[in-house]
Structure formats: C-alpha cells, structure tokens
C-alpha cells in the first residue's frame, strides 16, 4: 500500500463528474427537443442568409431625403422618454417607500407596494403599450403612459432596495428629537437615497430612449411609426436612414447619461 503510484489525476471527484456530464447531457437533450419540435420551414432557414443579404442590399444606399421629418419625430421620441421617466420617478417614490420593509407603514401597504412593483416590472413596455393603445387610442399618450407604467416598477424596486440598505442610526437620532415621521423621512431617509435616486433615474432614462423607439410599432407614437410606415411601403433605403438615426440616438443617450452621472454623483 505504501507503494501507491500517483499516475492518475482528475480535476473533479467522480460524483462531480457525473453531475457535470448529466447537466451537459440535459442541455443537449433540451436543445435537441427544441430544434426538432419548433415549427419552422427548414428550406426557409437554409435560404435565410441569402434573404437577409438581399434585404440589406436593398437598403443601400440609405436615403436621407426624409431626414428632416425623421429628426422631428426623433425629437418627439426623446420627449416621450424624458417626460415618461420624469413622471415615473416621482410616482415611484411613494411606491418604493411602501415596498421597503423598514419604512412601510404596515403589512398591507408592504404587499400593495410589492404587487405594484411586480406587475409593473413583469409586463413589458410593448404589452403595456398594447393595452394603453386600446384604452387611449393610437398616439403619444398611450406611449408615455406605457413607458411610465413599466418604469415605475424598475425605479421603485431599486429605490426600495436602497431604502432598505440605509444607515438606520440617523433615523433613530431624529426620532429621538421628537420629529414627526414625515420630517424624519425628509431629513434622514431622503438624503441617504438621493444618490441612488439620481443614478437609477438616469439609467432608466437611457433605457427608455431605446424603448420609446419601438412604441410606434404598436401605434403608441414616436419614431417607430415612421419606421413601420417605411417598412410597410418597402421603402428600404429610408428604413436604413431611420435605423442609423436610432443608433445615433442610442449612442448619444449613453454619452449624455454618462456625463450626467459624472456631474451629479
């Protein structure tokens, strides 16, 4: 037994290896299942690179003749994102207050707050837009409200977590001075969550810029309407222009939000 020869080395124990192989096998089975049961016409799939190349060929060269109008609608898109973000962050304040365990007045408000956050967050902007187009009819209002509804959950959740993480000692100190609940919030809680508030608002604005470019596809205003129109009329060179403008908008949005973050925080 003392003459044991160490000529074998393995990175994992046998049990670990069995585990790894079975996970790996499971992945393959799942992918195989998805591949074989998905309803696609495989001839189309094989022809798709050709089709996609064709489509991009038809986009060249981009046609800037409508650029003026596109830029006007682009500005409208920016406004939708900005206004919706501004209103949403204001509304999300009380929601975050209710959804944070250390500030919520009672269990009922805690669950109400959580319910608002979850339903807002789990439903995509486009689905919200479908609903609000049905309610308000096609137009900017539906778009603004849809983005607002989705943003409340996002901002509220992150803000609520920030409230739960605050340092409770100043809160205790101000309660000891006999201050009312509202004043304690204003003096001890608000200053502590302010940095998160700004960071999350800027982040959400950046995301909303992107979201607002697609609202038009379900009739809720913004640049998506022109995009849909150009696609429906097979005006591919104009589609290319719109897509380039959207890229420029998104990059500009990232630059602006990076600058704001540096300025404010």
């Amino acid at each position, binding site marked *: 037994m003392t003459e044991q020869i160490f000529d074998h080395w393995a990175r994992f124990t046998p049990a670990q290896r069995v585990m790894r192989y079975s996970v790996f096998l499971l992945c393959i089975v799942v992918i195989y299942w998805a591949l074989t049961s998905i309803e696609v*016409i495989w001839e189309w799939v094989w022809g798709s690179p050709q089709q996609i190349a064709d489509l991009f060929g038809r986009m060249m060269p981009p046609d800037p003749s409508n650029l003026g109008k596109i830029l006007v609608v682009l500005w409208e898109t920016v406004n939708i994102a900005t*206004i919706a973000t501004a209103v949403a962050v204001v509304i999300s304040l009380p929601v975050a207050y209710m959804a944070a365990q250390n500030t919520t007045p009672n269990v009922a408000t805690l669950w109400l707050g959580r319910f608002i956050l979850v339903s807002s967050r789990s439903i995509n902007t486009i689905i919200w837009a479908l609903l609000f187009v049905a309610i308000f009819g096609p137009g900017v*209002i539906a778009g603004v409200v849809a983005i607002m509804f989705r943003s409340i959950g996002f901002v509220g959740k992150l803000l609520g977590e920030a409230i739960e993480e605050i340092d409770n000692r100043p809160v205790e100190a101000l309660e000891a001075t006999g201050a009312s609940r509202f004043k304690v919030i204003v003096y001890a809680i608000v200053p502590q969550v302010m940095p998160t508030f700004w960071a999350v608002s800027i982040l959400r604005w950046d995301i909303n810029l992107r979201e607002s470019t697609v609202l038009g596809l379900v009739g809720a205003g913004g640049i998506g309407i022109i995009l849909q129109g150009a696609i429906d009329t097979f005006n591919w060179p104009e589609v290319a222009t719109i897509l380039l403008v959207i890229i420029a908008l998104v*990059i500009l949005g990232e630059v602006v939000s990076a600058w704001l973050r540096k300025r404010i925080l």
Partner: protein
Amino acid sequence: MTDQTRDTWRKPPFIANPVLRYAVILGIAAYVVITAATLPLDWDRASQGLTRAARIFSGAFPPSFERSSLLIDGFLESLKIAILATFGGVILSIPIAFMAARNIAPRPIYYLGRGIIIVARSFHPVIVAIIFVKAVGFGPFAGVLTLIVYSIGFVAKMLAERIEEIDFGQVEAMRAAGAPFLSTLVYAVFPQILPRQIGLSIYQLDSNLRASAVVGIVGAGGIGATLANAFGRYDYDFALAITIVIVGVILLSEAVSGQIRKRMK
C-alpha cells in the same frame, strides 16, 4: 458685533455659479413648457379612455383559460425560441467577445467586434424582429434570429469585459512553456472566463424568455403572437389570462435563474 448678522442661513446651492444655476433652471422650465405644448396630446381622446378602460377591464374579467391549449402551445414555442436563441447567441458571442477584447484582438478586429456589439445593443429586439420577419417570413425562426442578436449584444459585451480583466500571467506562463495559440486559449483563457460564461448564459436564458413574449407581437412567433391576436380580436379575457401566465412564468424563471446562479457561486 458680527454676531448680529449671523441670523440668516441658506443651504449652499447645488450649482455654485448663479448665472449657470438660473440658466439650468430656466432651461428645464422652458423644455417642460415647450414639450407639453408641442407633444400631440389629444386630451379629448384621453378622457374618453376612461370609459374604454372600463369596457376593456369589464371584458377582461374573469380571465378566460378556455383556450388553454393555445396558451400552452404559445408558451412552449416561446420556450423553444428562448433556448435556441440562447444557445446560438452564447456560441456566437464567444468569438465576437474575443474580437472585442482590447488586450487580445488587433486594432482593426477590435473595432469590428465593438461595432457588432454596439449595433446589437442599440436596437430594441422588436425592431430587429420586424426586420427579420420581413427577411425570413413570419414565425419562430425570425424570433430565434432576433434573440440571437439580442443575446450577442449582452453576452458578448459582458464576456469581452471579463476577457479584458483576465490575469495575463497565466497566458504568459503558457506561452513561455512554448504552448501553441490554441492550447493557450484552452488552458489559460477559457478556465478564467468559463464560470462567468455559464452565469451569463443562465441570465440570458431568463431575459430571452421575457423578450420572446414581446417579439411575437410583431410576428416573430411564441406567446407574444397569441397575445397580440387576442388583443386584435378584442378577446380581452383571453388576453388577461395570457398576461397573468406571462407574469407568473417570468417570476418563476427569475426565481429559478437567481437560485441557480446563487448555487453556482
């Protein structure tokens, strides 16, 4: 003597320069007024919205699960789309991430890699879906292609950042031992990025499932298509049933992927 003047105090303003401060305040005020005036908000329509909302919600209750087979089929399709897109996206994002890693790729290739990531990230999946629906026809295949692009935008970006952070000592040690390029990659680079890549894949599967509910609305298959159809036919009770199930599945998948990623650490 000086004590007498010391009975006023003002909080130091956020922007010290008064000219700049008032310019910023004025600018924001002007923006709000101008956008409020120019956004084509149709208040008449908005006020009619209330009655329409009442009609929609009364039509939506109680949610109807009668056509649950349609619902389940839609979901399975969404799941397949998400699985295949995650698989394809993760595989494709590996070479793209290497191209976009500053410490590995030569300059021109680096810019190409970054360019691909920026374009993939700039477009909302719904826009990508519309283009692919036009190129390869309606159905889940367009959805898979869309979400592959979406996955690349996120996974390749995060992975490229991870590659840029790797410990180059190990790479140099391998090179010093005379290892060829591919072995260096397999033994010195892959082990460092693999855990991150698995975590990203699980996260991406979760977000692809969310997104697949949306791209269907513009014709790229899955539960979104079912939802858009229900909305189009004014089947609000079925639409509500679908929405409830979407929210449930999203919460479930978020919890599961969160658990898995936590267990892996």
